[in-house]
């Protein structure tokens, strides 16, 4: 580009105090060259590195690969000890949820996606199983029992599974479990056949489905999903969700958000998520409104990176 001394007829207000040299500039050409450059770079990276596409875990795959974990998770849904059952809003009222000091934002959000883990994850899918007399009897027995009795059976069975070798239902000691072993055993069979994947998505008798809340909640209650994620170095203490499978950069721009989860007090707090979100909200507001914050807005003048950016300008004798 050539340096010129004349100025554009419509120079911006910023430059109206500028008495130095001007230069010709082709905005449209810069746009086209930049667009071409970004397109070529994109094609190059895509051609060389492709993109990850690890198949999703199915409930069928989970039930086949780790049936003991599946049964233990199903029992926890029945006795109300699973992560979802004890979650609180937006799924239920079992807890208030996380807090930021006196602010119970999670509770204030309300129960907008109600989930009854025993009914939604176990009992309702089992009702779709045809021609199983033993299951029908177990379902009737369970339904006829009081809520306390149901919980007692499921809790006893859950404890027995914990004490059984490898958590294997076949090696559980005898006890007062009522119909729970039959229910969870049939749910395992249903899942291993692939029937539970569709049953959880299509609850409500809908043919079309696009909401995977229930199967994902059920899967997230298991130890299996996290085991698979940790094997891919995606655990919460492994910088979690900012990464993705394989050696791909993932959402690197979430580094600061993910960073807080790695250090105290956040890494040890029961309110870690709310505290990290609160902190990030404050930091975000600071960045958005930095022009109005004395001290912070003066940082660029104190750190002379600008002299590197405008080094050609400051090299000129007249400044």
């Amino acid at each position, binding site marked *: 580009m050539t340096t010129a001394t004349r100025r554009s007829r419509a*120079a911006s207000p910023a430059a109206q105090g500028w008495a130095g040299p001007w230069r010709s500039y082709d905005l449209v050409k810069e746009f086209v060259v930049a667009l071409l450059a970004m397109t070529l770079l*994109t094609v190059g990276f895509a051609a060389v*590195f492709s993109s990850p596409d690890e198949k999703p875990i199915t409930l069928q795959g989970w039930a086949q690969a780790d049936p003991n974990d599946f049964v233990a998770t199903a029992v926890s849904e029945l006795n109300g000890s699973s992560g979802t059952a004890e979650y609180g809003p937006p799924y239920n009222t079992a807890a208030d949820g996380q807090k930021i000091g006196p602010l119970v934002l999670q509770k204030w959000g309300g129960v907008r996606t109600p989930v009854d883990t025993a009914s939604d994850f176990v009992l309702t899918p089992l009702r779709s199983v045809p021609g199983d007399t033993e299951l029908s009897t177990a379902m009737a027995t369970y339904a006829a029992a009081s809520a306390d009795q149901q919980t007692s059976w499921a809790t006893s069975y859950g404890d027995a599974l914990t004490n059984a070798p490898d958590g294997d239902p076949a090696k559980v000691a005898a006890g007062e479990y009522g119909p729970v072993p039959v229910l969870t055993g049939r749910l395992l069979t249903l899942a291993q056949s692939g029937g539970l994947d569709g049953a959880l998505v299509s609850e409500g008798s809908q043919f079309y489905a696009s*909401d995977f809340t229930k199967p994902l909640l059920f899967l997230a209650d298991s130890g299996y999903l996290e085991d698979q994620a940790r094997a891919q170095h995606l655990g919460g203490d492994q910088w979690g969700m900012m990464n993705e499978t394989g050696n791909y950069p993932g959402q690197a*721009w979430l580094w600061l958000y993910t960073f807080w989860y790695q250090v105290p007090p956040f890494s040890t707090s029961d309110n870690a*998520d709310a505290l990290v979100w609160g902190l990030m909200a404050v930091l975000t507001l600071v960045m958005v*409104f930095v022009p109005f914050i004395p001290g912070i807005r003066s940082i660029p*003048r104190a750190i002379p990176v600008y002299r590197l950016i405008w080094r050609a300008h400051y090299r000129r004798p007249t400044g």
Partner: protein
Amino acid sequence: MTTPPTNVPPTNVPPADVRPDDPPATGWTAAVRRRAVRTLPPDQLLPDYQPSYVASWIYVFGMLSLTALIVVVGTGSWLALAGAAWWHSSPVGLFVNSLHLWSVELFFFVMVIHLWGKFFMAAWRGRRALTWITGMVAFLGSIGTAFTGYLVQQNFDSQWISTQARDGLNSVGVGAWFNVLNTGQMLLWHVVLLPLVLGAIVVLHVLLVRLRGVVPPFEVAAPAAAEEATS
């Protein structure tokens, strides 16, 4: 066959004797046009001269961010043509998905450089606070849009990221309205709602850049403008 006439006048611009120049044309349309041209004259909207201090590579990253975003939208639109699950079963689809992924990575790479470059230039000086704010909001909107993109991939990454992210969103009550486990909801946010908002903010940001111009070095700005941020 007759030769079509050349220099055919546009049908939306009447002859001079029909459109009065004096007094000026009245009506809402004419008022908006006069205001637009007065606010942002064509020479300022598409300048062909600039002060010499703009000769720094850091200024290029704004344009690179804009063009990378165009590639992101283009590759995303290509993916949308054949549906959300196409890329899992088609080699061409996988390549288009790769284009989309890497365009996003490049977009964020150049945008972050653009952002920090503007921070160290104190680019909010000289009544450019709104330019900075719209840029930051565009950055945040981009994070949200990219995040929803990861949720709608329908693979293991989607499962893990959504089940992890729900805790953060639920903990502050957002999850009650923005359910990351609802793939259909996230897909619509990703391909319609967030791009519309992000696109509007980016257009406003670019227009503000053209309106206020790029920020000059510290000595060029008036002393008051150097420290005071007004919008």
